[in-house]
């Protein structure tokens, strides 16, 4: 995305945000609540258009060629979006139909993705009977059903226990490494960005730093990403 800006009335939600997520990159979009992460996701998923700037998904502009851009994108929203009264498999098949996939292929892909998140045996159960962590895993499986090249996750670990959090992080990292998936993982939990990930620090709609975690740490001279984040946001508060 290049020079992405968005305003809600007089309030600037995003101000000239530019960064890229490459194939195989696990990029953590780090920001406190209200930093603009959810607005950024809404713009990338074309819920509404940005006031300024542009977004390209593997060469397709989201405004000019939304079909192509959206077909290569998988999304896990911050709020749960599964139908609780439908089974896991019915939820997945619905998603597959939204991408025009044939049923046989959809069943095959559902089996494969549910197997990866250890939920194959629950595929005929209603989503209502699953735990919060299991529902999140179903959402990740669903987002990957049509084999996207870019996976967007908006605060996917909120409300999950440690084991479920770790499972999700490892799963997505594994996909980046093995399938060259580009992942943008929005969070306010600093410990979700490990040394081998890239990080984009978003604060009050502006990017304060971006790059591999060790580089961001080095730039600020902080011993940890947590300290770097605190330094960057406090400098910004003084500057404004």
């Amino acid at each position, binding site marked *: 995305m290049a020079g992405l800006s968005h305003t*809600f009335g007089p309030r600037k939600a995003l101000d000239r945000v530019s960064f890229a997520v490459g194939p195989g990159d696990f990029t953590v979009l780090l920001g406190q609540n209200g930093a603009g992460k959810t607005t950024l996701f809404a713009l990338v998923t*074309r*819920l509404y258009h940005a006031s300024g700037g542009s977004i390209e998904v593997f060469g397709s502009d989201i405004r000019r060629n939304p079909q192509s851009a959206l077909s290569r994108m998988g999304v896990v*929203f911050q709020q749960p*979006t599964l*139908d609780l009264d439908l089974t896991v498999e019915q939820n997945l098949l619905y998603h597959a139909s939204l991408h*025009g996939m044939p*049923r046989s292929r959809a069943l095959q892909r559902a089996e494969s993705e549910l197997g990866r998140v250890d939920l194959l045996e629950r595929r005929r159960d209603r989503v209502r009977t699953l735990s919060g962590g299991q529902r999140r895993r179903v959402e990740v499986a669903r987002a990957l059903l049509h084999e996207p090249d870019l996976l967007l996750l908006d605060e996917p670990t909120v409300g999950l226990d440690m084991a479920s959090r770790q499972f999700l992080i490892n799963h997505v990292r594994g996909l980046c490494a093995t399938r060259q998936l580009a992942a943008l993982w929005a969070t306010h939990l600093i410990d979700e960005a490990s040394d081998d990930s890239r990080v984009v620090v978003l604060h009050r709609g502006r990017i304060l730093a971006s790059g591999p975690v060790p580089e961001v740490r080095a730039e600020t001279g902080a011993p940890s990403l947590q300290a770097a984040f605190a330094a960057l946001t406090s400098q910004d508060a003084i500057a404004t």
Partner: protein
Amino acid sequence: MSTAQYLRCLGGIVRRELLRWVNQRGRFVSALVRPLVWLAVFAAGFRAVLGVSIIPPYDTYIPYEVYIAPGLAGMIQLFSGMQSSLSMVYDREMGSMRTLMISPFPRWFLLSSKLLAGVVVSIVQVYVFLAIAWFWEIEPPPVGYVLVLPALLLSGLMLGALGLVLSSFIRQLENFAGVMNFVIFPMFFASSALYPLWRVKESSLTLYWICQCNPFTHAVELIRFALYGEVNLVSAAVVAGFLLIFLEAAVWGYDPGRGFLARRAGAE
């Protein structure tokens, strides 16, 4: 995207709507109980008060229950149209709406499919209602049951599209009660669903014209005539016209550059 892919997408959206309807027993039962209460209680009570003279499409004197049955079929569609659109969007997080909107198919197609899916559900409800109503001696000719299908499709689409428009433009109506008071009740009562319009004309000419301009009146008349084997061309044209207007407005409302989604996000 090929035609087969479009059809798969449409099929998936319709299937989901049917599954949700079957699985949510409360919604299933209340959708049926509402018109049956009107038929069994209201119509029985008013039977003696309201005499209905011979008016098209009926060729004889009819009991009041027979008169209001098409209106109640319309009511099922009116509730269904408002409910499916509004429940979707007024789920504050817009979960199901967001899942739909990130599909790579064009937005007009997704909205139309969503609309059609709701209409399919409402048509099933109407047929179940008509089957039960048969025991109240509401016995239209067999051809009526066939002819009413396209009529229900058209009226259901129009009312569903209205629901979509409302859901995209009116932010203040945060709950269904508001829609009940300001949309469903006025549309239902200021129509030919419960009383023939010549009766309304006798008491108030202004109200008569309001009823005539009400798209729901024409939806009910379209259903009424079809149920008795006739086509009411004027009503069909009016319903089709309103459908196009509402559909255009709904697509505008959901446009990522102009519509309510952006304004709504800004307000939160």
